[in-house]
């Protein structure tokens, strides 16, 4: 009696689903007078596969007795196949691109993985470009991304923990780490935070990032992004944790310190002197981007006396025609340069360069010629804008772009004192925050000589130890 009821339910469920208008297709096959239903969604499945590997063998099946087990073990050609008996899960399977095979009067049904997702092929990276680095960037396809990582890390201790996040999107989120390297506390913390996410949809890894950071209001990013698979793998090997999100071409890397944002992967195998030099250059550029305009305001508006006399006259004469004061001038020009930058990101690729030309020539040249800004200001703004492109991970400089204005304002009121205090405020934020328990400003504060040396040199041949601040299980690099 119970059996009968169950059978009824599968069919009834099927009819229910058909009425829901979610585009479910049903294929009815009759073999030896018994009916078999194959349920799938055309857009999510490989229809050739269904015809050739499911329908064809079924139709060719000539034996009399047809059971679920028999079909699974001897008839269907599909590799990924399973059996379930919960009628309410049918809808989820179908929505995930699987085909469900129902035989009336059976207690359970078959799930065959026939999903096919339209995807683009592996292409070169767009945002984390580098000269001497592999060019296989992640794509939006989850499986491709996993395969790219698996391909590079052929180690059995690479753990891939899957989580389903998003009430409605049911996105797969994978936590990848080396079981015998990564510190378990951090792994646990990351998993805990991912499990805590309660939201209707995850479209991009950025969604996940938003939910798992320590403090939402923090201005500096605390989670790194990896666009290239080699960056992701190098970070996993370091003892970090990588999070892949279905449908996102950017992997997340954590815990990420401030220094890591300014560390490009190819530093580690480039010329050692060049690596040190570029690292210095990047720190210089981040400082310049932050305080250059503010210093201009401080010097022109407050402490012109700290300049040598000939510079004082030069600065003064260059500013004679400028109708506004230096504070307004700096704010205005920085604003214009930010506007140009924002515009050129949103523009289609073909017109992007045009904006660059408009920005440099028209605005710079014309503004100086019209006497609206001083030539020195144009130089300073271009320098600080240029400096704000120098980091390998652009997200960290987004914070600097905002803080730049804060610095200009506070300097505009308090001069040098304001400059120093504003800077202090930012440094306090940097040194006191943590990324998943790792001090954000390590290895500078807390200072660790070995880590610091390794960080500055960055040479893969000289680094024998993994960074201490990551507290990895396996301390050495062999």
């Amino acid at each position, binding site marked *: 009696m119970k059996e009968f009821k169950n059978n009824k339910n599968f069919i009834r469920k099927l009819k229910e689903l058909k009425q829901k208008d979610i585009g479910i297709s049903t294929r009815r096959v009759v073999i030896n007078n018994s009916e078999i239903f194959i349920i799938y969604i055309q857009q999510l499945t490989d229809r050739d596969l269904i015809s050739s590997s499911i329908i064809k063998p079924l139709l060719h099946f000539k034996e009399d007795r047809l059971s679920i087990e028999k079909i699974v073990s001897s008839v269907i050609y599909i590799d990924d196949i399973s059996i379930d008996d919960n009628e309410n899960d049918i809808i989820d399977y179908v929505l995930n691109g699987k085909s469900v095979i129902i035989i009336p009067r059976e207690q359970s049904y078959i799930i065959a993985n026939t999903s096919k997702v339209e995807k683009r092929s592996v292409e070169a990276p767009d945002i984390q470009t580098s000269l001497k680095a592999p060019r296989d960037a992640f794509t939006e396809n989850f499986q491709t991304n996993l395969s790219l990582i698996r391909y590079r890390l052929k180690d059995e201790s690479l753990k891939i923990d899957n989580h389903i996040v998003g009430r409605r999107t049911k996105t797969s989120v994978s936590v990848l780490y080396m079981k015998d390297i990564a510190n378990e506390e951090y792994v646990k913390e990351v998993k805990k935070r991912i499990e805590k996410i309660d939201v209707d949809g995850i479209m991009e890894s950025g969604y996940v990032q938003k939910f798992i950071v320590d403090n939402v209001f923090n201005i500096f990013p605390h989670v790194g992004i990896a666009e290239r698979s080699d960056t992701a793998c190098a970070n996993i090997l370091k003892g970090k944790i990588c999070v892949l999100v279905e449908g996102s071409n950017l992997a997340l890397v954590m815990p990420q310190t401030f220094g890591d944002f300014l560390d490009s992967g190819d530093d580690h195998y480039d010329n050692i002197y060049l690596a040190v030099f570029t690292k210095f250059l990047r720190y210089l550029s981040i400082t310049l981007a932050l305080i250059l305009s503010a210093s201009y305001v401080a010097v022109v508006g407050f402490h012109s006396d700290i300049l*040598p006399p000939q510079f004082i006259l030069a600065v003064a004469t260059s500013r004679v025609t400028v109708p506004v004061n230096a504070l307004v001038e700096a704010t205005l020009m920085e604003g214009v340069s930010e506007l140009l930058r924002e515009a050129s990101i949103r523009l289609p690729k073909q017109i992007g360069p045009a904006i660059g030309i408009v920005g440099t020539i028209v605005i710079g040249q014309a503004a100086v010629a019209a006497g609206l800004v001083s030539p020195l200001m144009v130089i300073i703004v271009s320098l600080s804008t240029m400096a704000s492109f120098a980091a390998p991970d652009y997200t960290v400089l987004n914070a600097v772009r905002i803080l730049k204005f804060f610095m200009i304002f506070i300097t505009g009121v308090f001069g*040098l*004192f304001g400059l120093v*205090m504003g800077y202090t405020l930012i440094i*306090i934020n940097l*040194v006191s925050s943590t990324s998943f328990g790792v001090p954000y400003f390590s290895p500078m*504060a*807390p200072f660790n000589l070995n880590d610091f040396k390794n960080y500055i040199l960055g040479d893969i041949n000289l680094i024998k130890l993994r960074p201490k601040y990551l507290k990895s299980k396996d301390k050495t690099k062999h």
Partner: protein
Amino acid sequence: MNQSITNRQIAFMIFGVVVGFGILGLPKGIAEEYGTAAWIGILVGTIIAIIFTYIVTYLGYHNEGKTLYEYSEELVGKTITYIFLAFYIVYFFLFFTFVIRMASDVIRLTILINTPTIALCIIFYIVMYYALIKGLRGIARLCEFYGVIIISGYLFIYFILASQGRIINIRPFFGTGEISQYLKLPIATLVPYVGIEIVTFIPLKKDKNRKVFKYTTLMVAFIGLLYMIVVEACISVIGIDDIVHYKDALIATIRRVDVHWLEFFERLDGLFLSLWIMSVFLTVTILGYGTVIFTNKIFKKINYNVLALIILIISLIASQLPKTFDQVQFLIDLSGYIGLGPIIIIPSILLVVMKVKKNNQ
């Protein structure tokens, strides 16, 4: 809350709190007492400071994970501990309050002539509050990072000064040569070291901070060396007769030097003032933390952050009370002298009690 910090951080915190406002007038103070034999005065002061640093560190180290409040309670009982604590709190409070006021006054007199003092004070307090709510670790890391910047910057400036000075100005090296001159030990030599007692509120761990003695004493010795370089550099540039006229002897010295080969940075006063503001900020932040954490021991129920806010607001009001520069100067000197109590007397008493109790066991 796990608030243990590394040896290096402790050392830099000592640097941060000791080297601060005082360095401005240090050359004057020492030169007034010792003349060209200033380095001897600093040497004597440094040795005494090292001894008391050792005592304070010893107390902290042998009372693992405890601050002064906890181990003093074990050693001398609750009542006396409260008296001690009150001493520390009053002294920390007075010191950081009036250092902020004084620093704001100096800034106003030197670079921001028209800006009201209270505005400068408010900025100090805001940034300081932000640092305080980050807790001991945040402050320690800030000290570590800024310490390196300040030390390298200061050394650069002092060597430049020394290179511009004349050797004839620092002679005779031994002053007038009278022994009594070296023996009088004016208090001016010890006041620059006020601040080493901050070790009392840093909980030390025996396993992590084993080498802490080396770090703290060496840091104090290094500060002594730095002081020596400063004073000698200033005297060599300005001369012993003139330097005693400047309360801001160091700025006065720096302003007498133009370094032509540095081109854009020919004048060093901008650089120096930045570093000096940083070091003043470290001093007041650490002392402010001391005030809040010790007050928190008495008023355990009040949340740390709220208490910090209350104390800073009281301090802001208090800092505006003195009307003249001399009053502020007097209060700073006063708190400097009070400070000798927490450095010398209280740790000595506690050390003796601790030794006696150990022997009795």
